């Protein structure tokens, strides 16, 4: 099934024409600068803003189609919305906030106790919103939106108003939620970290139109996208825990045909996980390289092919996308290195990656939500 969105709207400052289609269920991250139209997509999907033209469908289910005259007001759509500023009702207890949407629908697919357990908010049920921390408030807001029994969950920068500590408190809950939900999620964020941890698909939006859309592993490794020119750019790889080597304190991950050694991870064999390889940590070598086991501290030498090369003037660097067979990595090197190695699309190279540089993304287990 697919979630397809098509939207056109004229604002005095910007014309928006956004169109994408992504797999459903799954988390789709809408990524892009402020004012580029991400929140317009969310508002239109929720029904809070009626664009000049808009069509949103999940599989064959039409949520909105202005050309066919289908436009339901927000209260008659089954769409959950999590705002940046939680917007809990201050005159109600947490549990009354949670059931507000549930009481107004007959569906009972998403269970109250399950959500309370999953979000760890059992101890908060009788409290009032003004006594909660920012992170707790946001967890309750997420629960409230889900208990509305939505067909589509919208999250508009749900972590943007929280500090780093609170963010990392909530991210694991979101990652866990992701594995149990069987609905499409549109998630707006500015944070590359949230994108890497949560996204199944990414839609890059700039100045009112879609720059690129696709699976997170593909989009995060593209050299020609603005995403790659960020300081913290890096490709996301979906891997499986292949084996642990207790004596060497290493874990072997298989990412398609590629193998990555990382510091030992406390995850059972067979676990699906995401890793991120920062572009600035990837060294390129021409051709096949023999790993000098007794001369180099390095663990990972991954053979691949240069797929694309793009300039990165802000860093006085060049970005190289290397296809590894299963996924791709992104490497940020100097233009001089490109010239010395005579790199061009199609060149056989090896990507050299320190095991310590591979970021294992906490808690985000699946590439796809697993049906409950």
């Amino acid at each position: 099934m697919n979630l397809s969105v098509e939207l056109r709207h004229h604002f005095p400052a910007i014309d928006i024409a956004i169109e994408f289609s992504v797999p459903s269920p799954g988390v789709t991250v809408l990524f892009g600068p402020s004012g580029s139209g991400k929140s317009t997509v969310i508002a239109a999907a929720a029904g809070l803003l009626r664009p000049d033209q808009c069509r949103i469908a999940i599989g064959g289910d039409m949520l909105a189609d202005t050309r066919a005259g289908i436009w339901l007001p927000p209260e008659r759509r089954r769409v959950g919305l999590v705002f940046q500023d939680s917007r809990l009702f201050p005159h109600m207890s947490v549990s009354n906030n949670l059931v507000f949407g549930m009481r107004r629908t007959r569906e009972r697919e998403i269970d109250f106790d399950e959500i309370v357990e999953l979000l760890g908010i059992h101890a908060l049920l009788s409290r009032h919103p003004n006594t909660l921390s920012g992170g707790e408030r946001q967890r309750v807001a997420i629960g409230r939106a889900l208990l509305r029994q939505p067909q589509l969950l919208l999250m508009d920068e749900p972590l943007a108003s929280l500090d780093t500590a609170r963010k990392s408190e909530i991210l694991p809950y979101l990652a866990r939620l992701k594995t149990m939900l069987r609905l499409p999620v549109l998630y707006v964020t500015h944070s590359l970290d949230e994108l890497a941890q949560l996204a199944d698909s990414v839609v890059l939006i700039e100045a009112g139109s879609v720059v690129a859309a696709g699976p997170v592993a593909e989009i995060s490794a593209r050299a020609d996208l603005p995403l790659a020119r960020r300081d913290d750019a890096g490709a996301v790889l979906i891997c499986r825990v292949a084996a642990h080597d207790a004596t060497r304190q290493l874990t072997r991950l298989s990412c398609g045909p590629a193998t990555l050694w990382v510091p030992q991870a406390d995850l059972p064999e067979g676990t699906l996980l995401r890793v991120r390889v920062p572009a600035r940590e990837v060294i390129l070598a021409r051709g096949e390289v023999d790993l000098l086991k007794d001369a180099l501290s390095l663990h990972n030498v991954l053979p691949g092919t240069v797929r694309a090369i793009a300039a990165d003037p802000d860093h006085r660097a060049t970005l190289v996308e290397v296809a590894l067979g299963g996924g791709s990595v992104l490497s940020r090197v100097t233009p001089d290195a490109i010239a010395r190695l005579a790199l061009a699309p199609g060149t056989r190279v090896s990507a050299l990656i320190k095991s310590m540089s591979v970021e294992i993304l906490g808690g985000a287990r699946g590439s796809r939500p697993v049906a409950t």
Partner: protein
Amino acid sequence: MALRAVGFALPLAILTAWVLARSRFPGRSVLNAVVHLPLVLPPVVTGWLLLILFGVRGPIGALLHDWFGIRLVFTTAGATLACAVMVFPVMVRSVRLSLEAADLGLEQAARTLGAGRLDRLFNVTLPLASPGILVGAIVAYATCLGEFGAVITFAANIPGETQTLPLAIYAAIQVPGGEAKAAQLSLVSLTLALVGLLASEWAGRRLNAALGR
């Protein structure tokens, strides 16, 4: 009488305030002006207008009298009506201010959670505006106790029936040797006004605290 006046006028005042705060329609400023008229008109003029409209031979008063046998002029019910009309703008203003201060974001959230227009009004908007509504009602009640011009014009000054405090004080001053009684009543009036103001302050604060503000 004052209690009844506030009780009758309040729901209507909430409705009017809601319409004024939330809808845009042609004639909105006219409605706004009419609502506020009793505040700026000399009360005697308001009373006279009521007399014209609700008098036994007035267009509305005649209907009430012929069909239901209700006579408003020079009765307690008439005094209540005059009072309600006079305090109406006070209540509308206070309710409207708190409605406008209420967070529209919360109403949006309620919409996405499936709450329709009236559902939102009763379960989100009004509870959040309750401090303003209560303060408005208390101030209106105190104002009503002190109504003079409209009541004396429309309902006259009948002790025990249409006599408000200022009317009683006025009557006392007209009688030789009534100064002591006038002073007593004025003291009562002063106390009531002060208690009213303090009560509204306190109630507003208590409710706001309950709403977590």
